[in-house]
């Protein structure tokens, strides 16, 4: 009796042990700190710090609104010819039933894939995956994501592409 209880507990703990890392985590773990890759991690704590900043930046309020629900941003970029693209590996491991494809933008030299994980009608994770240009990139955003206000950030920065959106609104 005792023995079975013990072995059950051990089995349970090993199951949770093996199931704890996601595909994104694994890719980050594998490539972060290696030659030819750059990782950036901005935590929930840092976002709290940012939101308590006093800034004259005209973008600041817009930024604050867009990031109010965001708990973390992770970025992994591949740069230089010596490194290997990682996006294929990531996509092979990613559970595609959880991450829904929102949009794919392809042009001559790169492919941008937008994936979102939804919970109760809210986007809780947003992945932007760039591949094909020889410099793969992954941007992962977690939290309650308000895509509309993120999309509006570019307007203040005068990015190409936004003009089109405003035209579309007319």
């Amino acid at each position, binding site marked *: 009796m*005792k023995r079975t209880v*013990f072995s059950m*507990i*051990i089995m*349970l*703990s090993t199951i*949770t*042990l093996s199931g*704890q890392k*996601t595909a*994104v*985590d694994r890719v*980050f*773990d594998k490539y972060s700190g290696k030659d030819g890759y750059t*990782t*950036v*991690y*901005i*935590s929930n704590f*840092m*976002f709290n*710090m*940012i939101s*308590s*900043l006093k*800034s004259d930046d005209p*973008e600041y309020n817009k*930024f604050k609104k*867009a*990031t109010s629900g965001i*708990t*973390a941003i*992770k*970025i992994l970029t591949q740069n230089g010819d010596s490194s290997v693209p990682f996006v294929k590996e990531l996509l092979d491991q990613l559970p595609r039933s959880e991450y829904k494809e929102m*949009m*794919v*933008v392809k042009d001559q030299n790169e492919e*941008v894939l*937008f994936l979102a994980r939804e919970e109760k009608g809210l986007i809780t*994770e947003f992945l*932007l995956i*760039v591949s094909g240009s020889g410099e793969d990139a992954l*941007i*992962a*955003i*977690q939290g309650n994501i308000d895509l509309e206000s*993120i*999309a*509006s*950030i*570019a307007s203040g*920065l005068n*990015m*190409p*592409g*936004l003009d*089109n*959106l405003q*035209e*579309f609104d007319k």
Partner: protein
Amino acid sequence: MESLERIIELLERFYKGETTLDEEKYLEQFFNKGNVPEALFADKELFLVMKEPGNVEIPDDLNVRISDAIDRAVRNEFKTRRISWYSLSGLAAGLLVLISVYLFFLKDGSESLFTDKTMEDTYDDPIEAYEEAKRTLAYVSNKFNEGTSELQHIQKVNRTVENLQPLTLINKGNKEIRLLKQLEKAGEITRQ
């Protein structure tokens, strides 16, 4: 037989320690007479022994044996209790360790992508973090808008469809013309 009932009653009181000396003497006489019914043999022996304890041989080591037995009983009780406490505390400690390990990893695993402790903040300065986050979000936003901007072609299609609206007027006219044709046909038939 009346006396037998009395004897039994006296015996009961004797066992309870309520008999007087006279009554005990009476009982002693009865048992010593030899004319004792079989049912009372056991009582007879017990009574005589109790009246004269000197008849019973007491073993020399009785004291030692009794105290040994008591010691043994006490030790056994102590031993069993100690064993169960030991095993219980061991079990509890083991369970506690396993549960805490389990909870630790369970908690770890439930926090999705951003759980691993090896990942540390890239920036210490919130202003730098702000700049990087802004740059990143602008990039995301830009890419996102690039995708959605392609949707404006749909609007172009809409506009073209709007331009086709006059065609429905033509359609309407067509219908009326068809009615006229039918009238003409009817007129031809009546003329014939």
